[in-house]
């Protein structure tokens, strides 16, 4: 009987992890409530909320991909946050058309925030993952599920020189 229950639970977990960001409602506004950082002292830039932001329920080993439109001439700020402090969340930015990897936070000191511009308007894939067996598992608390938020903000890039627009 225990085996049957275990298989059932495993099947369900596989089902819900099919795409963690698609489990939107449980963690719906997590990114709005928990990923917003206070600006550093003297930072007067005003980033606006981007509606392509998203939250999802992740288990260890979950990978989820968002395809977003990024415009040339805009500054973007991506902020990742996890319900459980200290959990490592990885993200990669990939050109959706060429599949070229443009950024990987694992190669950049596991940065949980990333600001960038793009040379061109394009679709990007943002691949978010919670690695299997991270440090918390060693402490005897494996993650069954926790909300992960991806907050996207934007603003028009500063221009140099005069412009009619």
């Amino acid at each position, binding site marked *: 009987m225990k085996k049957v229950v275990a298989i059932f*639970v495993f099947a*369900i*977990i*596989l*089902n*819900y*992890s*099919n*795409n963690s*960001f698609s489990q*939107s*409602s*449980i963690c*719906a*506004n997590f990114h709005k409530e928990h990923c917003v950082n206070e600006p550093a002292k003297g930072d007067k830039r005003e980033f*606006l909320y*981007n*509606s*392509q932001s*998203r939250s999802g*329920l992740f288990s260890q*080993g*979950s*990978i*989820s*991909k*968002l*395809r*977003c*439109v990024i*415009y*040339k001439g805009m*500054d973007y700020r991506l902020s990742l946050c996890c319900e459980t402090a200290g959990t490592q969340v990885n993200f990669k*930015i990939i050109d*959706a*058309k060429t*599949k070229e990897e*443009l*950024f990987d936070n694992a190669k950049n000191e596991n940065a949980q925030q990333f*600001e960038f*511009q793009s*040379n*061109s*308007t*394009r*679709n990007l*894939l943002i*691949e978010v*993952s919670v690695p299997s067996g991270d440090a*918390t*598992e060693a402490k005897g*608390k*494996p*993650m*069954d*599920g*926790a909300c992960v938020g991806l907050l996207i903000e*934007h603003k028009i890039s500063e221009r140099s020189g005069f412009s*009619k*627009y």
Partner: protein
Amino acid sequence: MKLKSLTYILSASLSFSLFSCGGGSHESDELSTNDSTKVDSLALNTEADANSIIYQVPSPSEMLTFVKMVGGKNNKNASFLNPSDNAKNYNDAKSKAINFGIYGCDLSYCSTFEMGVEALKYFKVVKQLGDEIGVSTTIDANVAKRLEKNVGNSDSLASITDDLYYNSFEDLQKGKQGSTLALMVAGGYIESLYIVTNLNKFDAKNPATQRIADQKYTLDNIIEFMKNFESDASVAEVLKDLNSLKTDYDALKETSVATDAPAKGIKVLDGGTNVEITDVQYKAISEKVKSIRNSYTTVK
């Protein structure tokens, strides 16, 4: 790490299907085995996990805000919006859902461009249609009071109407009304193109013109998102319209972008292509958008 209860996970697993905020999860033709190979090596997920993609769509207000910020703040003209009187004539589920998106965009335009009185008028029809399609909990009396209180404050109005859009989105998701959501997104998208092509005449140097060209990418995402619900006849009909518009967008020339000098203090993602649009193509897209949009708003 925080341990969620089994009940919580069971409900999460059973309650939510594969569609999402701003877009749906759909296997894209252009994203095939290369991706899955890469991802499979990273985690203990199935191949389906690796290929499943959520298609996100910027809200209509983002384009309207951009157009205002690049110099169009005096573009106040409610004459080409969908008359609020039409709302009472939308009697079928398809026209209600599409026009909920259209009126939502009209409301956003009025709020962003500081037309408070018109915004209140459009709020009423958004509420009326919202009640009819099942997002009434989002649009309660408090929202109306907040709008009335902030009629003279465009930032607050825009913020309130943005919240309305996002919350309607969430409501439709929670209610598993994927088809309604798809139609609402399509309606809002078409109306935003319609408004901007009315406000902005072709000028190759105007960022608003380029923004219209760049809508090629958003259109691609909306189409991929809507494919999740194409078994619904109404969604299939609208998909046909959007694919017709995509034909015009696919004709736009794409040129490789040269690497720019690094910007000060911010990482620049190199590569990609620039979508170029001519006067003739701009007019053709504007006409196609007008034709599609009017077919949705015209009372038959």
